[in-house]
C-alpha cells in the first residue's frame, strides 16, 4: 500500500483523478450533446455536478485503495442523483415521448424521460427500505452499467447472490412500476 507521502504519488494521483473524470464523462457525457432543443442540462454541468457529489472521496488515495469498480459504483450513484435532480426540476413541464437518445463518441446514454426516471428512483427508494442491498445492485447495473461480475466484486458478494438479487429486485420493480397508483 503506497504511503500518502510518496513523492511519486502526486503524479499518479493526478493521472488517477483524470481517469476518474474520464470515467464519469464516459458515463454521462452523452448528455452533453443532446439533440433535444429544450435541453437544459449542459454536459459539463452534469459531469461537474456528479464529480462534486463524489467530493473528496474521489481523491487518488481512495481510488487506489478501493479500486476501479468501487469508483464506478460511486459514479453510478452520482449519475443517479444528477439525473434524478434534473428530472425533478423538469418533471412538471416535461412530458416527453419516452427515451431520449444521445450520441457520444464512445457511448450513448439513454436518458429516460423525467417522469419515468423519477418513478424508477422512487421505486428504488422503496426497495432500499425493504432491502438496501438489492436496491444497490439495481443502481450499479442500471446507472453504472456494471456487469454481474463487477457488481459482485464491488459489493464483496458471491456472483450468484448479486444475480439472484438482481432478478428479485427487477421483478419487484417491474411490478411496482406497473402499478403507478400504489
Amino acid at each position, binding site marked *: 500500500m503506497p504511503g500518502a507521502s510518496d513523492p511519486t504519488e502526486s503524479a499518479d494521483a493526478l493521472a488517477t483523478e483524470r481517469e476518474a473524470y474520464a470515467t464519469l464523462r464516459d*458515463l454521462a457525457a*452523452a448528455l452533453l450533446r443532446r439533440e433535444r432543443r429544450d435541453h437544459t442540462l449542459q454536459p459539463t454541468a452534469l459531469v461537474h455536478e456528479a464529480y462534486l457529489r463524489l467530493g473528496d472521496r474521489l481523491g487518488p488515495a481512495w481510488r487506489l485503495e478501493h479500486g476501479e469498480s468501487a469508483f464506478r459504483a460511486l459514479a453510478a450513484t452520482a*449519475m443517479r442523483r444528477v439525473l434524478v435532480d434534473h428530472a425533478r426540476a423538469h418533471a412538471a413541464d416535461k412530458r416527453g415521448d419516452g427515451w431520449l*437518445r444521445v*450520441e*457520444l*463518441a*464512445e*457511448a*450513448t*446514454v*439513454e*436518458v*429516460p424521460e423525467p417522469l*419515468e426516471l423519477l418513478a*424508477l428512483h422512487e421505486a428504488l427508494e422503496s426497495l432500499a*427500505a*425493504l*432491502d438496501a442491498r*438489492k436496491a444497490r445492485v*439495481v443502481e450499479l*447495473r*442500471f*446507472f453504472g*452499467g456494471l*456487469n*454481474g*461480475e*463487477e457488481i459482485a466484486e464491488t459489493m464483496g458478494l458471491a456472483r*450468484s447472490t448479486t*444475480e*439472484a438479487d*438482481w*432478478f*428479485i429486485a*427487477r*421483478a*419487484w*420493480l*417491474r*411490478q411496482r412500476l*406497473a402499478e403507478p397508483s400504489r
Partner: protein
Amino acid sequence: MMDSGSDAGERFRRVGEIFERARILPLSEREASVAASCGADLTLLAEARALLAFHEIGGDTLDRGILRPASGAMIGRYRIEGLLGEGGMGTVYRATQTEPVRREVALKLIKLGMDTRHVIRRFEAERQTLARLEHPNIARVLDGGTTPDGRPYFAMDLVQGVPINEYCDAQRLDWRDRVALIVQVSAAVQHAHQRGIVHRDLKPSNILVACADGVAVPKVIDFGVAKALDASENSATWNTVAGHAVGTPDYMSPEQADGGDVDTRTDVYALGVVLYQLLVGTTPLRVRGTSRGRSDAAAPRSPLTSELRRRLREDEPIRPSSAIAAAVTTRSKSDIATWRRAVRGDLDSIVLKALAREPSRRYSTVAAFSDDLGRMLRDEPVTARPPSTAYLVSKFAQRHTVALIAASVVVASLMIGFGVSVYGLGTARFERDAARRAEKAQARLATALSAELFASNIERGRQSVRQGSWPEANDLLWSALIADPTSPQARWAVREMVWAQGCVATLHVETDVESVRFLPGGERLFVCSVGGRPILFDIATGVSTELAGPSIGAWEVAVNRDGTIGCTSDSRGDVLAWDFSQQSLPRWVVHCGDGRACVSCSRDENVAFAGGAQGVLWRIDLDGSVPPRPISFGAPIARIVVAPDGTVAAGGTDGSVILAAPDGSQQRKLQPQQRGIQSIAFSHDGLLMATGTKGPTIAITNLSTGEIAQTLTSKLGTSRDLWFGLDDSRLLVLGWWRLAEVDLLTEAVRPLVFIPAWRIDVLPDGSAIALAGGGTRSASVWRVGTDAAALRDSLPPHLVARPIAGSADSAGLAFIASDDTGVLGLDEHGQTLWTLPSAKPRTINSNDDGSLFATLTTDRRACVYRTSDRSLVAEGRNARLGEAPTLAFQGSDLFAYVTRDDAVRVIDLKTGEECEALPPSPTEVLAVAFSPDGSLLSACARQFAGTMIDLASGQQTLEISLSTGFATAFSQGGDYRLIGTWRGDLLVRNVLTGESRTLRGHSARVVGIIPHPRDPNLMLSESSDGSVRLWHLGLGREVLALSPFAPPSALRTAGFLGDGDRIAMTGTEGELAIYSISVVDRIIERMLAEERERLQGNVPTESDEP
C-alpha cells in the same frame, strides 16, 4: 412505523426466497414449487406468483440500462454506423466490418442481464454449423463476441427488409401469394433443420421480406441466436429470461411456454402462427383472447402469466376461416367472402395441424408442413385433412379436371361413332387411337388415385390402431394388405395391429394348433396341434418345450387341478395323460370309441372326464389308483366342460347335454337342441349354461329350471368356444375369424381380437385369454383390457441384461443378468445356471451371439469374459462408469470401452493389443458401436450427436445435432449408421454415400438401437417414452410401434430373438413380452389365402371343425 417496516422487509425476504427457489426451475415446475413453499398462506402465494410473472417480461427500461455504444464506436472488428431497431433481446445496429473484408452487417447487441459466458459458449458450439447455413432465404449469423462491458453481440448478414406481415399488407398480397411466401420461408427453415439448427424464435420480425428487382425475397434472420440466449437448458444458476420468453408470447409454442423440450416441431408451430397471422390478420392467441371478451391489447407485453400459459396449453385456436378479420382483406385484393372460402377446408386443416398443442400431433417436419401447403396450392389432397375417400376423389377430380373431361369426351365420341358409321376408315382409326389414349389416361389416373388411397388407408389404419378402433383398423389394413400383399408398409401395419390388440406371447408350431389350456397360475400354456407332440409353452420367456412321447397329434387338451398332468384326446378316440415333470412317457388312459374324443379336467379333484364316439362319459382318476369308470351313456360326445361347482356337462352330437355330479350321480339330460353341440360354458354363479351349436345360434339355459332362457344369434358363425365374463353379464364368443364379446342384455356384439382360432382358454381372473390359432399354426396369449397386472404378477421376475439367443453355451444359456450378487447366467426359464460372484458389475453387455460378455465394475475395470467358462479374456482399465452402451463388441474380435477422460479405447481380443481409437472428447461419451466388419466405430456424446471413426485411417466424420446422442448402432451389413438422440430423433447416415436423414417418431430419448440380425433394412429403437419402434431404412419410415407395458411398468430393454423373427421386450416390473413376426406372418398368409379363395368364388363362410 419501524415495526411495520421490518415486517415488510421480512415479508419481502420471504417472498424473495420463494421466488429464487422457483426461478431456477424450468417454467413447468415453478408453480408447484411456489405452491409447496407458500403452503396455506394465500397472500404470500399471490405475491410470489406475481413476482415470477414479472420476471418473465423482458426488454424494459430496467433491462436496457442507460448506456449504449454510439455511432463510430467499435465493437470488436465492427464499427457502429447507426441504429436499425430495438427488440426484446437487445438493440440492432447497422455496422461495418473492418477486417478481414469490409462489409456491412447487422450487429445485434444483447441487453445486460444475459450470462455472457454461457451465451458465447453456446454460440461457439454451433458456430461452424451456423456458418454452413447457405440458403438464399437465410441471413446468416456470421460472428459472435463480447463487448468490453461483458455484453454478448452477434454479427449477421444485413437485410434491408420489412417484417413479412407488414410486407404482405403493404403489397396487398392475395392469400395465395402469402402462402407461397410461407412455403419459401419453410424451405429455409427446413434447410437449417437438416443441419441441426432449430430457430426457436420465428416471428414476423425475424422473417424480413426484401424486394430485389421486383421479386419478394423473404429472409429468416437470427438463426442460432435464440438457442445461444436460452440459458434454461444448461445453466441452472443464471436461468435468465430465455430468448423466446422475451416479449410477446404470441409465437411461443405450448412446450416453450412450459419450459419443455424444444425441437423442430417448435418451429413448425411458430410458422403455423405466422401463417395464421398472414391469413387472419392477427395471431391465434389474440383471437382466443378477443373471443373471450378480452381486450386485444392485453396479450402483448403482458407477462407470461400462468393464465397465458394455461391458454397456450389448453385453448384450441379458432379455425382461421372463422377468425378472418375484415382488416386483413382490406389490405389485400380479395373481398372477405372469397378470402374466407379460400381458407376454409385445407388451409384451416393445415394451419390447425401445425398449431396442435402436442408436438406429436403437429407436422413432424417443416418440410411436411410446406409439402402440404404445396399440395394445397396444387389442389392435391393434404395430409392434414382426415382423408375420406370422397375427399380424395374430389381432390383428384379438381386436379385432373382436364384429363377427366377429355376422357369423357372420347367416350362420348365413341358412342356417336357407333351410331354414325358412314365416317371413313381414317375417322374410325382416329377414334380407335383416341379410345386407346383415353383408356391409358384413365388407367394412369386410376393408378395414381389408388396409390394415394392405399397410402392414406394405411395411415388411417395405423391411427385407428392407436385409438383402439379395431373394426375400422381391421377393415382398412386388411384391405390394404389384400390389395398389395407385397407392400412392406401394409404388412408391418397388420403385424402392428395384431400385436396392438393385446397379444402378449405367441408360439408357432409345425401343424394346426387345435387346443390350448393354461396351467394353474397362468405362467404356462399346454398346447396341442393336429400333428406332433403336445407342447408346454412358457409365456414369460416365449420358450416352448415339446413333451416326450408319440408324435401323433391331439384334438383337445386338459390340465389337472395341480398343473402336474396334462391330458390329450385325439382323433382316434384315445386319451393320454402326460406327466409335465417329464419323469415318464405319457400313459394311455382310455379309448372312447373310433373318432374324435374330448377331455376336460376337474378343478377340485385330480380327475379328468373324457368321452367320444361310443357315447360313454368316463371318469378318470389321474393318480392312476383307480381305473377309469363310465359314469353316463348317451349319444356320441362332442364336448365336455366342468362347471365351477364340479358338475360335468357332456354335449352330444345329437344336440343333447347330459349334466352329472363328478361321481356320476344326479344325472339329468337337458332338452336336445336341433344341431350338434359345439361349445359349452357355465356362468360363474352356476345358474346359467350357454351352448353353441353348428350355426350362429347360442342357447342360454337356466339350470334351475332346465329351460332355455335366451337364444342369441351371434352373427359370428358357429361358436367354437364360449366363456362367461366375470360378472356373467357378457359372453365371450369365439366365432368365425374373431373373438367377440356379446352383451347378454342388449345382445350387442363387440369384437375383441381379429384372428382365426379353434379354442380359447381364459385365466380364472379373466386377465388373459389363450387362443388356439388353428390354421395359423400358432397359439397366442392375449391381454384382456388394459389390466394386465394379474398376468404380470404371475410371471417370474427377470434380471435381464439382454436376451441372448443361440448362445454358444451348451447348457442352453438364454440370458445373462446381473444383480448385486454378481453376474448370473440364466436358462430359458429364468433358472440360474451359473454365477460369477467375483464381478459385481455396474453394467453388463454381451456380444451378438452371447459367447462373450463384458462387465464394468466400480473399480473402473472393463472386463471381457468368455461365457462358456467365465474366463477373463481382456481387461480395460480406468474406464468410466457409464451405461451398457459404452461397452461394445465386434463379433468376438474387437471390444471397445470408454475411459474416464472420455476417450474410446479398442482392444483386439485375438492379440490383446489395445489402442486409443478416439482421443478424449470434451463431453461425456455415452455410447459406442462397431460396424459389422469392424472397420468403423461410431460414438455419440453429450451435447453433440456423435462421430464416426475409420479405424484404419483414423478419419472422423462428425454428426452435429442440437441434441445429445444417446445410442448408436450400424445396420446389419453396415450400410447405415444410426444415432438416437435425447430428443427422440434417429439420425441415419448412409455410410457409403454420406447422405443423412432424420427419422422422427419417439417423443423422448432413444436409449437403444438394435439392428435386425438378418434384414439390413430393419432397425429397432427403444426409447424412454416406453415405445419400441421398428424402422425400415429403405422406406425411410417407421413401420411398427409397440408400447407393450402399461404403467407403473416401463420398458427396460428390447431386442430381436433368434434370427430376428421375434421381438423381445423386458419391463421394469419383471415382465417379458415376446412378439413373434413369423407367427403373425402365418396369420397374414392364412388370411390372404382365404381371401384369394373367396375371390375365386369359393366362399368359405363357415368352416367345419377340423
